[in-house]
């Protein structure tokens, strides 16, 4: 693997290999000295054109636990805000001999362009590009699901037959896209639940079941319910009438929580709008994996950086 840009082109063996290595990384993170020498002498840049403190911190911790040198580059207050282009930034990093670039960008395909335009030779990790993909989020979600299901016996397993219901703004969600492709690759079944305005018009061509009725989806007792964040600007663009109606129809409220099986996982990529797409009780319920997702994010990102930057394949090209 040279880059991680999308889960759509991630082979099953590669995905499972990343998840298995993440298990090893999780062990490192539980030690007193949480550090491996693996990426000593390598430099990783967190290139964030869009603000995301959580994701950036997760990547930073991951790289540091592998002993990489980490540089954080945020667009705000940098030359980017003075009009410097992605190309110029990339060429600047190339001139500095950077080994890996973790990129978050508001434009879909920016990570792909960075990897393929010939501006820089480094390994590229997509940390979220527009409304396209967020592959490490999907990997950490899959890791979280697998761990809850199989615990210490997780290594080598896929998610065959697991039913995952993803609720909310699928249209604009890079998390939903990356999860769909990865979950399918790992054998899970995906169901989207949302108002029709927040589903792509061509969603019928995707390998997912689609429904509008959250109550019916809850009563189908899926193994996982994943709630997506609703952004307030969607309301102003008339995707739905207002917060109250959205919460009533598509929010995971206490009543719906109570109808979920005790074993169903409640997931959310964060940051949450408590009281809108998810109630506080649901977020804090034992079924919620939200804090595990954060912890697992570090392990999964360590694994991704390891596979891209450390192995013989990483050195190739």
């Amino acid at each position: 693997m040279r880059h991680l840009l999308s889960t759509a082109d991630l082979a099953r063996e590669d995905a499972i290999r990343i998840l298995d290595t993440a298990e090893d990384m999780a062990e490192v993170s539980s030690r007193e000295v949480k550090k491996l020498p693996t990426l000593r002498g390598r430099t990783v840049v967190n290139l964030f054109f869009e603000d995301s403190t959580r994701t950036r911190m997760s990547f930073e911790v991951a790289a540091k636990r592998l002993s990489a040198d980490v540089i954080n580059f945020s667009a705000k207050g940098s030359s980017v805000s003075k009009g410097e282009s992605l190309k110029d930034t990339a060429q600047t990093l190339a001139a500095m001999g950077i080994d890996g670039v973790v990129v978050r960008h508001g434009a879909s395909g920016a990570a792909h362009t960075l990897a393929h335009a010939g501006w820089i030779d480094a390994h590229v990790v997509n940390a979220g590009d527009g409304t396209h993909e967020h592959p490490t989020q999907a990997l950490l979600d899959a890791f979280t699901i697998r761990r809850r299901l199989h615990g210490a016996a997780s290594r080598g397993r896929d998610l065959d037959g697991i039913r995952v219901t993803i609720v909310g703004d699928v249209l604009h969600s890079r998390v939903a896209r990356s999860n769909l492709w990865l979950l399918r690759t790992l054998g899970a079944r995906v169901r989207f639940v949302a108002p029709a305005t927040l589903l792509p018009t061509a969603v019928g061509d995707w390998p997912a079941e689609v429904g509008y009725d959250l109550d019916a989806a809850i009563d189908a007792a899926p193994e996982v319910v994943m709630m997506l964040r609703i952004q307030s600007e969607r309301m102003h663009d008339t995707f739905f009438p207002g917060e109250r109606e959205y919460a009533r129809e598509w929010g995971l409220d206490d009543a719906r929580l109570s109808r979920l099986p005790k074993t169903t996982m409640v997931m959310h990529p964060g940051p949450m709008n408590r009281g809108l797409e998810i109630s506080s009780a649901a977020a804090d319920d034992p079924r919620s994996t939200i804090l595990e997702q954060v912890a697992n994010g570090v392990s999964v990102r360590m694994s991704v950086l390891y596979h891209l930057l450390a192995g013989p394949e990483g050195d190739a090209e």
Partner: protein
Amino acid sequence: MTHDSAQHGVTLVRGAALLGGGAADLWIRDGVFVEPADRADLTVDAAGLVALPGLVDLHTHLREPGYEQSETVLTGTRAAASGGYTAVFAMANTLPVQDTAGVVEQVAALGRSAGYATVRPIGAVTVGLKGERLAEIGAMASSRARVRVFSDDGMCVADPLLMRRALEYVTTFDGVVAQHAQDPRLTVGAQMNEGERSARLGLAGWPAVAEESIIARDVLLAEHVGARLHVCHVSTAGSVDVVRWAKSRGIQVTAEVTPHHLLLTEALAESYDPRYKVNPPLRTQEDVEALRRGLADGTIDIVATDHAPHPAEAKECAWGEAANGMVGLESALAVVQQAMVATGLLDWADVARVMSSRPAEIGRLDGYADPLAVGAPAHLTLHDPAAGRTFATTDLHGRSANSPYLGIELPGRVVHVWHAGRRTVADAALLAPEEVAP
């Protein structure tokens, strides 16, 4: 100033296949086709070449004034000549906008002094292309630029009342409104054709209905007020159906398709390479096939390039940040050969119609009604359909290189071009400005 002697005297073009038919000789003198003479000052061997009338592009962006880093009238008409064109209609989205007599006269004059092609400016429909109030359409029509085509291209005349008024008002001057059919509200932030692919790539969709609904509205308005309507760059199968229906009702509507919509599909967006970002966007294979059929059966009248030069920095970025548009003058004839002639949908006489006489008729440009006829202005393009090439930046002669065909094998080659009897391309090489300028 000395001119190439080839620009004067009697020229004999020997043995060209006229409109792809039988081989015959053409004689040129004093800028027009003439009866055979006793002797020629210059003889051009045209055996194996197809003689076409000089091509006419109803939809070109020359960018001057205002965006000279992308193109100028000189560089854009050089690109045109190299592609076999002898006339271009220059879109109004310059800076300042071509919405006054002064600006359109300036653009026309720049074209005359360059000499590579006749430049007919298109006038803006509304002041500053803002879609608020009518531009000085009458002043532009009666100016020395004799504007007959009015368009806010790049922007849609979205307000239905303003569109009605524009259609009615241009009728006064035998003009036509060329509509960029794009409902602005249905295409906010749009990046590519809306469908499964746009959803997967995370690029905001540009739905076909945003084009089709405006065309449907406009043909009904044109019918109601008895005006002429021209539809720019039709890109969807549904649009072809709407235009076909309108023509069957006797509505005075004409339509154009670009070469790229006849050949390329949205699949190219998978690369996120902004060279493939264009407005309207590349559509599906089904749309491409419907457009080809529409052009073949006359529903779509003409091919127009929508030549849209952009500097490198406008395309060397993420897709969502890139400018819309492709250069097209240099590659149009080759693409039409591949998409329409090689497929048997058009013959060369049809190509002459859709790329020369019909666009001239829509734009009220004289001199193209009787292609290659004695007495007509000598606008002539000799095309070698048997030649082929890997299209490269050396084939581009404008100021910008944002072509989607670079590195692709394209058939045919423009070998010689005369604009009003003066050579602009000889032996597949573009003549220098001082050889072409009058």
